[in-house]
Each structure stands twice: as structure tokens, then as C-alpha cells.
């Protein structure tokens, strides 16, 4: 097992826990031991950089500093939004010694910038050899790979793939038997950061994305960002209202797609947690009928479980 630093971020413990679950489910068979960054904090998300520039660097810097205590060079950050904040802070601290000094003073711990944040696609691409020979149930679907904003932009900072027409995820899904469709909204914004405050606008933006994927014949949309996934999945009723359509296309994480191809089950991959019903893995009728009940009763396999109560999100 290879140890790798892991920063799940807040979403992966809450509204997108199936991303964490599915990543953990495939990491083991791939030969990776995910070591959580100790006592990690929130990256600050868009709120920090919207209101306070210093905070938008300091919060991710604390995470980078804590990751350095693990003695690693890279840290896997599956959430695209967290990745964006971390890679920006990493970049800004490396660019200016003065900024680094100031931020180190604020966080009260050393931060050398020795740990590089790694996004999920970089990670999977680099280690594709460790899952491609484990494909037992090829995911033979026509899929639209949706990258969203923050994995590819700004290109100067992320330095990842081609910003207008990225291919990394397309190549990954083809390794597991899927057909990556050529479609037009790979990198358009779905509006997730206004998901709570401007739900109606977000419906409009997302409707275009889902509409184009469906038109091009996609059976599923594959994503690598919890914000995009939540938005396109949880907000589906708003999206359908905006589009005047009844889209039922599932939105799954790349980790779930790979897990499915490895023959992993619905619950191991958290597919039962989706709002838009995911019919994978396609099994016999009996299994499918049991699913809803089992989902509610199943104990969450997430590492950290908390008492749960009814609330709204």
C-alpha cells in the first residue's frame, strides 16, 4: 500500500459523502492508503476570497502546513473547489516570499510549500495502471465528462490539461469501457456557488449543461467536483423546471464510475445517496427492489459518523 495525504474537505463529509465513500472504495484495490491531513480545517471556499483576501490564503495555507507534517510531497484533494483554493494558495505562496512570510505569521505554523495539491483526475490519470486491469464489469455507457470550472481554470495556476477541451477524464472513462462523447459544455459553469442564494439562476445554467449532454446522447454525466454533482443532482427539480423538461440522466462521480467497472456495489459507492436515481450497477430485478429500504437503514461506511437528524440543506 502506498500512503498518500488526503484532504477530503467539508462537502465530502456531508452532502457529498458518496464521493468520499467511492474514493475510499477504489483506493484500497488500487493500492493506496489515504492518510487524512490531521485536524484539517475548511479551505474557506468562495466566501473567504469574496470577503477577505488574507483569509482566502491563510485557511488553505494551514491545511498545506498540516499536510507537510506528514512528510509527503503530494496531497490528494478530490473536491475541485477545495483544490482550486489550495492550488491558488500554493501558487501565491510560492510566487511571493513576502506573501508567504505574512501568511505564515497569520497561521502561526511553518509552511514551506513542499506539498503540492493533486486533483482527482491527475491522481487517477497517473495511476490508471492500478485500476485498468481490475475492470471486471466494463462501464459500457455513453457518457458526457463534465469538468466544470475549477479543475481547468485559471490555466496559469492549475496547469492541468487543455482549458477549453480537456481530455483527462475522457481518457479515464474510456479505460473502463465507456464511450466519452464529444459535447459542448465540458467546462461551462453550472453556477454551483450560488446554489443556495440564487437557485433560479443556477437552474438556468445547469439546464443548458444537462440539455446538451442529453442531446448528444449521454446516458450519464460523469463529474469530478462535489459542487457540480450536488448542483446537477440535488437541484434537478429546479433544473427541470427551468428547462421545461424531465431529465432523468444520473450524475455520477468518476470514482463511482471506476468503482462500478471494478464490480463494486451500489452501497460501497454511495450510489443510493443520489437524488436522481442511479440504476447502476444493472443487476437482477430483486436487488433493485430492495434498494430504497436498504439505503435508509444502511449504516454509513464513512469513517466519521455523527448522529443524524432531519434538517434541510
Amino acid at each position, binding site marked *: 500500500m502506498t500512503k498518500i495525504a488526503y484532504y477530503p474537505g467539508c462537502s465530502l*463529509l456531508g452532502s457529498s459523502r458518496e464521493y468520499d465513500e467511492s474514493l475510499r472504495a477504489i483506493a484500497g484495490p488500487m493500492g493506496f492508503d489515504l492518510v487524512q491531513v490531521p485536524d484539517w480545517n475548511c479551505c474557506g471556499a468562495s466566501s473567504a476570497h469574496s*470577503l477577505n483576501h488574507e483569509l482566502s490564503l491563510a485557511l488553505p495555507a494551514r491545511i498545506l502546513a498540516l499536510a507537510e507534517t506528514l512528510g509527503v510531497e503530494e496531497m490528494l484533494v478530490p473536491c475541485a473547489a477545495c483544490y482550486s483554493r489550495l492550488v491558488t494558495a500554493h501558487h501565491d505562496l510560492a510566487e511571493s516570499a513576502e506573501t508567504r512570510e505574512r501568511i505564515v505569521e497569520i497561521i502561526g505554523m511553518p509552511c514551506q510549500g513542499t506539498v503540492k495539491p493533486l486533483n482527482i483526475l491527475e491522481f487517477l490519470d497517473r495511476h490508471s495502471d492500478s485500476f485498468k486491469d481490475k475492470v471486471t464489469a466494463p462501464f459500457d455507457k455513453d457518457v458526457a465528462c463534465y469538468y466544470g470550472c475549477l479543475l481547468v481554470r485559471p490555466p496559469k495556476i492549475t496547469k492541468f490539461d487543455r482549458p477549453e477541451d480537456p481530455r483527462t477524464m475522457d481518457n479515464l472513462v474510456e479505460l473502463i469501457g465507456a464511450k466519452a462523447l464529444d459535447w459542448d459544455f465540458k467546462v461551462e459553469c453550472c453556477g454551483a456557488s450560488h446554489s443556495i442564494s440564487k437557485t433560479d439562476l443556477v437552474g438556468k445554467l445547469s439546464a443548458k449543461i444537462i440539455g446538451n449532454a442529453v442531446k448528444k446522447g449521454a446516458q450519464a454525466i460523469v463529474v469530478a467536483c462535489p459542487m457540480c454533482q450536488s448542483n446537477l443532482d440535488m437541484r434537478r427539480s429546479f433544473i427541470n423546471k427551468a428547462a421545461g423538461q424531465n431529465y432523468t440522466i444520473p450524475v455520477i462521480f468518476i470514482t463511482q464510475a471506476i468503482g462500478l467497472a471494478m464490480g463494486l456495489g451500489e452501497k460501497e459507492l454511495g450510489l443510493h445517496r443520489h437524488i436522481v436515481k442511479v440504476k447502476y450497477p444493472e443487476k437482477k430485478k430483486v436487488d433493485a427492489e430492495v434498494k430504497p429500504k436498504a439505503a435508509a437503514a444502511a449504516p454509513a461506511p464513512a469513517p466519521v459518523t455523527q448522529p443524524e437528524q432531519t434538517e434541510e440543506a
Partner: protein
Amino acid sequence: MSATTHADNDNTLAGRLSLATGVSVTRCYQCGKCTAGCPMAEEMDYTPSHILRLLQVGLDGFEDRVLKAYSPWVCLTCEMCYARCPQEVDIPKMMDFLRAESVRLKKVNPRAKDFVSLHQTFLDSIHYVGRLYEVGLIAGYKARSWHLFQDVLMAPRLYLKGKLRLFPHLIKNRKNISQIFKKAGTARTEAAK
């Protein structure tokens, strides 16, 4: 490319922007590609190239129009404008600065109060918990913004799906986080002076 216009040193909004972020509005040649590709352009009162234009000319009253604009708040920070800008003007960074500056100068657009509430609630959550506490975020945001629970119908389903945690996940060293907030706040005020 170095920006060595007088705007760098003076106390205009464009000058302060350049000083704080290195973004020089003189680099913009007003092609409008940012506006053309902005997913939020139709919601904005001043589109990105329009904001840049106001800052470039900087006549009396133009700065106030920028500070009181709704646009920076609807900006999604999707980075499309910056990725496609032929002159490499970091517009998202400019929007960040404009948001912070309009809060500091108490010129936030009335329509944007919701956004400010959300961001402040979010930061509060991190301040006291260390991580995002989704339930607290929604509750706090709704309380601040006096909005009805538009998402209330989602809650039971999300709970059933195991996606909601009622209690916050506290990190150990919350004192450290608290200090960061304190110092970052101070640094910001000092930078503003």
C-alpha cells in the same frame, strides 16, 4: 507586463486595485470577450468589461457606480473571463477586491445583502467550528437573510440519503482558527489603510 501608469500610485479605486492585487485595468483593451463568455452577464448591472471601462476612465462618480454594483456579487468566480482574456486581466481577482472594498466602505448593493449574509455565515461557521457546518450554514443564512426555507422540502430526503449531519464536526485546534481570523482581519484592515 509591468503596469507603470499613474494609476498604480494614486488613491483611485483602480490604483488601490493595482496596488493590492497587481491587476492593472490599463491592460484591458475593451474587446468584451469577458462579457461575451460570462455566464452571469445577463444578471449583472455592469458586465465585466463595463466595470473595467468605468475603472479605466475613472471620472467623478464612476468609482461609486463600481463599488455599488451588483455584478461582483453575482460573479461565480468560474474564471472563464480570465482564462479567455487575450490581455490576461485577472478579472476574478478584481471582483474579489471589489467585494471586499465595497464591504469595507459600506457601499454594498442592497440587492447583494443576501450574498454578504451567506458569505459571513459561512465564515462564521469556519470561525467557530473549523469546518463548514452545513445545517448551521443554512440556518444562519436564513436567519440573517430572513428568507423562508426555500429548500425545506429537500431536507427529509437528504436526511434519508445520509447527506445531512445535525451536529457540527468540530476540529481540535479551534483556537488556532480563531487566531487566524483575528490576524487576517487585522491584516486586511492594515492593508486597506
